[in-house]
């Protein structure tokens, strides 16, 4: 009987201690909302390496603005977007946050972001950011985001394979050139395919280049689909001819490679000679492979519209509910324009939008970084009509494009049929406002 009584005491003791421990660990957390003049909450997507860089940059800011501190929260992109949406539902967005160009339309329209209007050219300086800067973040009457970095589109090539067949990447100017080069290169220097298949990833970026070259846009100003079936059919037909010639990576090979990220993709492991992707990824690709890589701009047909060039922005916004809008604005200006901060964060998110920063960074870049920056600066000199803001259904469009591509690639549907379904679904997902 007595030892059972002791057991009851230990029961209560353990339960009590556990509760106390829970309380103590909870107290370490502090309040979740930033009080006025408390530390700002800054959020970005990426990995630990990027987070470390930006923490150092924030430390610089803190030194320069005594007392204005900021805490960084980060997660990988999908987890980041999920958490952002959840926080927004609770009215708890971080004070300063990086925003995807695919989501700015939605967040801007919902009015959960701070309107930069009162701060432009007073606290936040946009003079060096290029004339596309403000249109990239303008939704309706307010400016809800500004670009900190730009990325571009490009073709990256396996240098030994190119040299083996005497193909010069810089000579590839049109899509026909690219097709010919891919056919030429398939199988050289140990590769199996001439070109990786970019259509298997659910993304509208690759389609967007083609669509713009044909004088159309992905989205109308009213938010509906701005592209025609014929354009999309021509796009898929181009890839299909290479698929039939066994020069394009087959569907299952590409899908498997897509699951492994950069380290496992076909170019990096040497299975593919050419690859279409975002130009800021040249440096990353080079870092994971021993194969020397070179890059060139995306090809365009001779009769393509001249101002098709576009540069998806990496945007920065602030929360409409922030208790420290002035400090937030100062921090945003810091990330946009401060050269010392840029010397720490460099090209990790893309090419910095400020031309002054680019000038300052140029001498410190390594070979592939220099190649990327030189190319994007050259491209940015080309005429480029404004990029439409992604409307609310944009992420759905990504999925629809991905589905159509997979159906075509796996031979589950003919190209006209798949595109017809895509157009119908796109009209439903993107209602014209």
């Amino acid at each position, binding site marked *: 009987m007595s030892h*059972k009584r002791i057991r*009851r005491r230990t*029961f209560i003791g*353990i*339960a009590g201690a*556990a*509760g106390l*421990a*829970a309380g103590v*660990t*909870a*107290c*370490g*957390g*502090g*309040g*979740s*909302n930033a009080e006025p003049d408390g530390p700002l*909450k800054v959020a970005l*997507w*990426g*990995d*630990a*390496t*990027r*987070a*470390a860089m930006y*923490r150092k940059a924030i430390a610089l800011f803190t030194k320069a603005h005594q007392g204005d501190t900021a*805490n*960084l*929260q*980060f*997660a*990988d*992109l*999908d*987890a980041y977007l*999920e*958490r952002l949406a*959840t*926080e927004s*539902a*609770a*009215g*708890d967005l971080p004070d300063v946050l990086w925003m995807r160009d695919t989501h700015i339309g939605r967040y801007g329209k919902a009015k959960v972001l701070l309107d930069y209007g009162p701060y432009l050219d007073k606290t936040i300086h946009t003079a060096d950011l290029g004339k596309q800067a403000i249109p990239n973040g303008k939704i309706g009457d307010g400016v809800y985001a500004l670009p900190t970095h730009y990325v571009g589109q490009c073709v990256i090539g396996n240098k030994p394979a190119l040299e083996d067949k005497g193909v010069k990447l810089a000579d590839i100017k049109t899509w026909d050139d690219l097709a010919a080069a891919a056919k030429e290169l398939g199988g050289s220097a140990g590769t199996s395919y001439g070109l990786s298949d970019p259509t298997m990833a659910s993304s509208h970026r690759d389609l967007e280049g083609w669509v713009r070259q044909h004088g159309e846009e992905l989205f109308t100003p009213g938010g509906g689909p701005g592209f025609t079936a014929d354009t999309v059919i021509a796009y898929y037909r181009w890839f299909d001819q290479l698929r039939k010639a066994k020069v394009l990576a087959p569907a299952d090979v590409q899908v498997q490679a897509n699951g*492994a*990220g*950069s*380290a*496992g993709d076909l170019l*990096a*492991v*040497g299975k593919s000679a050419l690859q279409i992707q975002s130009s800021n*990824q040249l440096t*990353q690709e080079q*870092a*994971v*492979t*021993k194969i020397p890589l070179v890059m060139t701009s995306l090809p365009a047909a001779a009769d393509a519209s001249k101002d098709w060039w576009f540069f998806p922005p990496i945007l920065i916004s602030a929360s409409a509910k922030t208790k420290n809008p002035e400090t937030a604005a100062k921090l945003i200006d810091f990330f946009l324009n401060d050269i010392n901060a840029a010397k720490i964060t460099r090209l*990790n998110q893309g090419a910095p939008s400020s031309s002054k920063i680019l000038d300052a960074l140029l001498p410190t870049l390594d070979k592939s970084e220099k190649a990327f920056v030189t190319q994007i600066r050259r491209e940015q000199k080309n005429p480029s009509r404004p990029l439409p803001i992604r409307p609310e259904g944009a992420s759905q469009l990504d999925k629809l494009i991905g589905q159509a591509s997979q159906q075509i690639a796996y031979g589950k549907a003919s190209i006209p049929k798949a595109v017809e379904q895509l157009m119908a679904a796109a009209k439903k997902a993107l209602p014209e406002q």
Partner: protein
Amino acid sequence: MTAINAEVAARRHGSLIRRRRISRTWGHVIIVAFGLIMLYPLLWMVASSFKPNNEIFTSPGLWPHTWSLRNYLDGWNQLGIPFSTFFINSFLIAAISVVGNIFSCSLAAYTFARLRFRLRGLFFAMMIATIMLPFQVVMVPQYILFHAINWTNTYLPLVVPKFLAVDAFFVFLMVQFIRGLPRELDDAAMVDGCGPIGVFWRVILPLLRPALAVTAVFTFIWTWNDFLGPLIYLTDASKYTVPVALNAFINSTGVTAWGPMFAMSVLSLLPLFVVFLFAQRQLIQGIATTGIK
């Protein structure tokens, strides 16, 4: 006659033993072969943690061409905070959750399984119903709730529910176990003058040890591996648990550091494995008496 019978019996006995030995050997063979198949993916992960990043995809075999401890060194400090912090955070949350679940779930289970009260059927159905709704749609209202009482960026939303028997899985598990215990034991204790609480404390709880061990192990492991909860509630990197810290190695817009991630995943398995081994002993000490005798 008896001699012949004895001989026949002996031969039958001998063949019985041989049959038993053969079946035992087969049992061993199956278990070992299967075990290797089960383990292969884990062995691959351990092997990859010793390969440099670019070798993981180019040489998919089990044995690394170049052995390197680089991944472990890099991974340890990847977030600027030593990984041990995350182990400690995870351990703390998991251990407290175990305590919470063991006590709250056993209490609730006993009440459902042995006590009669109005609405028992309804409440039991509601309890099962709580696990039938996908968490993705409950997550947002819960977050709003916890945000309203200022519990975000603390461990409270992760730990307090465990003291309130929120895990219907374990309540139901223990209900099934308690139902397997003969009522005569309860009755005997009640004759001796125990009230329901006494019966719970003296009779049921000790006999529930395998179920408690299962609850402890599973709570620990599932809490340790929980990603979504810590992701949305913890924003300070120093508070991260292991799965959230592992997510920091992934970069879907850049290069994922697979090597260090595998290395830290391997390390993260060790505490789980140790907990499991330790709890196994509780699991094995079966019920010495199912008591009717």
